[in-house]
């Protein structure tokens, strides 16, 4: 038990420290790397909760694929230093403090209720709930419909992204040239 709580606090510190690093570090690339630290620490917490599958997926998808994409975009855009928000939006910083406090109070309140509330049920730890086998069984029995709808959802998103980003519509080349010319003309008229 002692080892478990030591690990918990270690991962928790790492996660929060990484999160703070993301926000305060002025260099976007290093800021993104801090996010990787947070992701790994969270994956460690999932392992402690016996959710092995979620932990693996978390590392593979978030720390792996999505973070690489992040870094790629940041490096492509060649952002050097974070530029501060100016003008009216500068006030948003103070507004964010208010939101932060509100969220914290809310979380604290629910946490308090959870621990000291009337229905204080002792936590039962399911040792098998997060294994790959259990999740696979759940996905293909009780949750098979949501699982399959998710595939339609992703397909829709893919078609949409392809349509909006593809270079050439099915129109012939002359029609497209005329179309671009028209759009430019419209732009000139607007000015």
């Amino acid at each position, binding site marked *: 038990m002692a080892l478990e709580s030591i690990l918990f606090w270690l991962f928790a510190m790492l996660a929060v420290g990484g999160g703070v690093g993301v926000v305060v570090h002025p260099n976007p690339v290093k800021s993104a790397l801090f996010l990787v630290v947070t992701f790994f620490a969270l994956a460690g917490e999932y392992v402690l909760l016996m959710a092995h599958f979620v932990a693996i997926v978390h590392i593979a998808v978030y720390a792996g694929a999505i973070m690489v994409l992040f870094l790629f975009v940041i490096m492509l855009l060649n952002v050097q230093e974070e530029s501060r928000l100016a003008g009216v939006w500068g006030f948003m910083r103070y507004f964010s403090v208010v939101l932060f406090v509100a969220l914290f109070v809310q979380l604290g309140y629910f946490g308090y*209720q959870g621990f000291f509330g009337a229905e204080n049920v002792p936590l039962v730890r399911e040792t098998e709930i997060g294994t790959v086998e259990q999740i696979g069984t759940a996905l293909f029995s009780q949750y098979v419909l949501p699982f399959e709808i998710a595939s339609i959802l992703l397909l829709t998103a893919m078609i949409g992204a392809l349509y909006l980003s593809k270079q050439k519509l099915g129109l012939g080349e002359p029609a497209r040239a005329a179309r671009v010319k028209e759009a430019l003309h419209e732009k000139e008229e607007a000015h």
Partner: protein
Amino acid sequence: MVTINIGSSDFAAILPILVVCAFGIYLMVQGVLAPRIHKLTLAYIGLAGIMIAMVSNFYLLGIETDRAYFEGMVFVDKLTVTLNFIFLLTAALCLLLMTSYSEQEEIEFIEFTPLILFATAGMMLMGCAESLMIIFLGLETMSIALYVMAGFRRFNRFSLEAALKYLLLGAFATGFLLYGMALIYGTVGTTNLTQISAYYSENALNLNVMALFGVALLVIGFGFKVALVPFHMWTPDVYQGAPIPVTAYMAVGAKAAGFAAVLRVLVLATGQAAFEWSQLLWLLAVITMTVGNIIALVQSDIKRMLAYSSIAHAGYIMIGIVAGNETTVSAVLFYLVVYMFMNIGAFAVAGIVSGKNEQHVDIKHFAGLGKSQPMLALVMTVCMFSLAGFPPTGGFMGKLYLFKAAMESGYTWLVIFGALNTLISVYYYIRVVVAMYFQDSKESVKMAAVLPGVGLVLLVTLLGIFYLGIFPGTTLSLLY
């Protein structure tokens, strides 16, 4: 050992959704395998798919209704069947409009037809959801398809602006919705709507903050999708920028799907908790009607005017939701059917008048339409009178049932506000009619040709409005 308790009756329960999805996937493959296929052929195959789904929808009436399928994921009752019918008919009419619209503007049916089919599948899922998870997945499938469809005129700045604005604000609203669902799940410990309903009615008097907060966040999320004031900011810009058939689809389909989810969650599941918020919903209904109608008074662009009018109509439907008694569901459903006919009719006429590249969308471009195109002017007049709520159109009966439901629950002031708003709205609807019959066109407006597809849409809407206005009982008895 994995045991799967899913039988053929489970698949029968979602038959229309399966048909629509299968056609969507087939059309995509077809477009790739035969790139030289005539683009309209794809649209007609899509229409055939929707027709088959409609026929299979009647089959739903035959299977055992009023029970949950897929281990408590979807629910089949009369509400499901009626909503499926509304969504499928909307999709069919809008796809027909799009075939004609493609003469005015280049449209890629390879992408458009699957998108509209998947969006319809998402809406139908929201209509039959028995779990918060299904509602969320259906809503996202619908929304993502709509974000893209709003930006389908890729060479038009306004269309792209509409798509971007809708995407950013929609994603933000989804966050609220998901947070609300998480809080409800945290309180009840399940996403099943029947169990949530049981929990809320048992603990109606001592609900904790988390449970109430969850419902409030759901109201915000759904309020965005159906464009209630103050979550309506995106509506005019998105409706204006999107291609007209897509605007019609959003104004009718997305709104009906949003209200379907509201009926499922707020009225049928958390009805007890929503009762605590009924003062808030009352206020939302009044503000939505009033703001929508008053801003619509000063609009000169027909699409913006119809956008604000659709906001106002969301307010009218909220009257029925606030009433929260046994007539709510049938009154709201009846209004959604009427709303579908009259809005699609109005958008169809606006699409023809707008001409190439949607250049003529001002109300003054309707001047002289009564002389040059009497049939078009007639349909537009009927739609405007129905939207304003004159007898003997369906709009009158729809409002009557909504107001009656509110009166039965004792919301007299709400009905008075509704009636006052109806009076205000007459001004801007009649303005279009006056322009058509009593003003001469100063400039020659080159309209699009009235193709058979659009003609069919106009005929269906005209018949629908009058049928629902004169024989409302036959439809209403089908609903509940």
